[in-house]
């Protein structure tokens, strides 16, 4: 066996080379790392977050968790309003949400799925604090001790929290409220809602549960607890109070929470509202994606949106169709120019190239403003047409605020992106091929169509994909010259972000558009190669 070849320092050459290679790789990665991190943080994560937002739907279960849990046992197929416990859960959730001012956000979220819910939630948020008042009155009439916040603290707070509260010197925030373990086992419902009450009082109002009388729904919860668990025991000091209250309970007037909600708004007795809440209660939903393609989620499964609300498929289709039209016009206009550029002597070609590159370098807003000015009803183009007598003065062409305007302006804006790749492909086609074809007897047309054109197809492919990718994501130009009939899906995304605030739907539409673009880009990579992207010729 041969001895292993050694490097100068005595280590085997193989290991030494490996180490050098590893070091080289490390150095390359270290140079790339800062930028990679930067792009990850400023670009990739935001896009990822947007994709997540298109399925995320935690707002329902976060805002009304008790209601969502109670709805689990509801038979949603029966087309009935849920049973009373669901309404009691809703009263509690709504009370907390109203105090935190979160109910309106949930209302707007559900309003995307069923109009009218937003005002229903707003209205209910205002009046929900009355629910359970019947119990509050009866408890306090029975014994004024129930009116004293200290009673409640004694009954429900953890001894450690009371001790911490005593030790607290009044500066900074009060120690966060803790519920006692005994209360959780003896009065589960009360402990649950009281803990939230104390949290809201401390965080929202900067107040202390020791000084605030609980909400009406807390009394309701205690009533339920005492009825459900007659043997519940309280701390020794309150045993007497609990006993007298318990014995008085059977004579209490009972509030029908369902009726109270009906009193606030009849819609609460509509099964449709509840079905919407139930359908959108999971933390993740495909609802936004379904909406983005004109479908909707109902308790009975997936259905088409009502005919007059189906807009997105049409919009996607129109975006595709207009982008194709723009791409095709670009091929039509770009091909002769590229051919001319490729076949002129380089000095002349460079001069003409400037005419192509100047628009490429000119601000998009400048070109869009130019078209807005030119295409107007009283603009230069219409003036010229009238002057030449092609159209009558009172019958000027509508060139703007419609699809025509978008197509003209965008063809102009994207034309350089077609000419440049076409030109770079055509430059590589030797002119002698055409001459050879002609010398073999081909007519001009045959020589072009059978010999030249097939060789320029890669250029057409590259330019078309580039123009198409750029076109379907355009926002500015359609927004300004497109009116209502010439807008793209991007304009709808922008509308949902800034006007309707339906961010989930905007994210879903964006995700679909992104998928289309990435698929096209993958095709571009296969045809042209990612490394062959060139700028400015």
């Amino acid at each position: 066996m041969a001895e292993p070849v050694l490097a100068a320092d005595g280590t085997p050459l193989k290991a030494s080379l490996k180490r050098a290679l590893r070091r080289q790789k490390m150095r390359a990665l270290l140079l790339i790392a800062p930028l990679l991190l930067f792009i990850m943080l400023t670009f990739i994560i935001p896009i990822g977050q947007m994709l997540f937002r298109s399925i995320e739907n935690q707002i329902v279960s976060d805002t009304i968790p008790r209601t969502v849990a109670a709805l689990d046992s509801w038979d949603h197929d029966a087309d009935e309003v849920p049973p009373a416990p669901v309404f009691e859960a809703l009263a509690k959730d709504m009370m907390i949400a109203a105090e935190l001012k979160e109910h309106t956000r949930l209302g707007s979220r559900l309003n995307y799925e069923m109009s009218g819910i937003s005002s229903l939630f707003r209205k209910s948020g205002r009046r929900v604090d009355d629910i359970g008042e019947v119990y509050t009155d009866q408890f306090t009439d029975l014994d004024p001790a129930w009116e004293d916040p200290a009673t409640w603290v004694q009954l429900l707070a953890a001894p450690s929290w009371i001790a911490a509260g005593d030790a607290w010197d009044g500066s900074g925030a009060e120690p966060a409220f803790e519920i006692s373990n005994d209360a959780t086992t003896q009065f589960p419902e009360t402990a649950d809602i009281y803990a939230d009450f104390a949290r809201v009082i401390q965080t929202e109002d900067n107040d202390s549960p020791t000084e605030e009388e609980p909400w009406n729904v807390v009394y309701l919860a205690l009533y339920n607890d005492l009825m459900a668990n007659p043997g519940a025991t309280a701390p020794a000091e309150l045993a007497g109070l609990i006993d007298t209250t318990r014995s008085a309970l059977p004579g209490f007037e009972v509030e029908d929470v369902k009726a109270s909600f009906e009193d606030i708004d009849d819609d609460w007795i509509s099964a449709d509202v509840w079905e919407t809440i139930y359908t959108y209660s999971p933390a993740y939903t495909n609802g936004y994606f379904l909406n983005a393609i004109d479908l909707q989620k109902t308790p009975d499964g997936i259905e088409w949106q009502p005919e007059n609300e189906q807009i997105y498929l049409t919009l996607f289709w129109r975006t595709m169709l207009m982008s194709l039209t723009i791409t095709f016009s670009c091929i039509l206009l770009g091909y002769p120019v590229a051919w001319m550029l490729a076949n002129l002597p380089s000095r002349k070609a460079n001069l003409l190239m400037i005419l192509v590159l100047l628009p490429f370098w000119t601000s998009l807003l400048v070109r869009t403003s130019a078209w807005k000015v030119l295409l107007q009803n009283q603009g230069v183009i219409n003036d010229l047409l009238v002057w030449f007598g092609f159209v009558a003065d009172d019958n000027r062409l509508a060139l703007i605020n419609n699809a025509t305007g978008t197509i003209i302006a965008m063809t102009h804006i994207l034309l350089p992106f077609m000419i440049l790749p076409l030109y770079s492909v055509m430059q590589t086609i030797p002119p002698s091929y055409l001459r050879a074809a002609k010398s073999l007897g081909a007519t001009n047309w045959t020589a072009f169509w059978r010999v030249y054109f097939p060789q320029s197809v890669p250029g057409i492919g590259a330019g078309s994909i580039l123009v198409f990718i750029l076109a379907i994501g355009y926002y500015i130009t359609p927004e300004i010259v497109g009116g209502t009939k010439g807008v793209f899906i991007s304009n709808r995304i922008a509308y949902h972000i800034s006007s309707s605030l339906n961010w989930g739907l905007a994210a879903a539409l964006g995700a679909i558009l992104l998928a289309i673009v990435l698929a096209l880009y993958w095709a571009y990579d296969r045809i042209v190669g990612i490394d062959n992207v060139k700028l400015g010729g």
Partner: protein
Amino acid sequence: MSLPIYATTGQKIWYYTFRVIVGLILFFLIAPIIIIIPLSFNAENFFTFTPKMLALDPEGYSLKHYRDFFTNPDWIRPLKNSLIIAPFATILSVSLGTLAAIGLSQSHVPFRRGIMAILISPMIVPLIISATGMFFFYSQMGLWMEETFGISKSLSGYIKVILAHAALGIPFVIITVTATLVGFDQSLTRAAANMGATPTVTFFRVQMPLILPGVISGGLFAFITSFDEVVVVLFVGAAAQKTLPWQMFTGLREQISPTILAVATVLVGISILLLTTVELLRRRSERLRGMSPS
């Protein structure tokens, strides 16, 4: 493709028709940009040529729209913002982008394709989608910056827009600099190292001067990307960060004022300047490359 002397009449007709067609297309490309220049000197608040202008009457022309541009705070403020945001974004993307491009052009880079795809992605993803993603993320980031570092809302607004624009400019820097590095002779750095230069000295004295044209034109691309960008700034920025394109966009969408044509003319002038610079740099780079065997 000059016309041979034996060309038939049909060929002659086609030859000239074709030239006319190409001329018309080039006219279509350039005319909208050229036509706004005389229109911007209109003495009236119209968007078309007045009879006085057509008669070349000096009274038909005036500089009033330019005066408005340079005195009206509605335009001065955005101009300043653009001139603050674009240079910072450019510096950020050029410095990070050049380093990464040098790393990428080494011979052994693991996951090269994947890394390249990620770095180029801001150019591929449609702006509206980048803007949507950034809208959600950057608003949280702004709040976080204000709380953690105690900076003002306006400063955090500028930082957000600069970061966003830097991300959008990076692909252009990467592409132009890697293209320049393809022709870079790696043995030059080895020779420098051989003669005792440290890596830093090699970078600044040997490599940098040679790839400088690529770096500068990448920087110009990044600058124009930021200077011209409106969708992302519209979503990420607040009114305090309103840039020139944003103001133009609002003007075009709501109430179009003829000042916009003066602004556009100034911007066309800037584009011509940039185009010339890039073109000169490209020629210089080709000359330099011709000198070093690749």
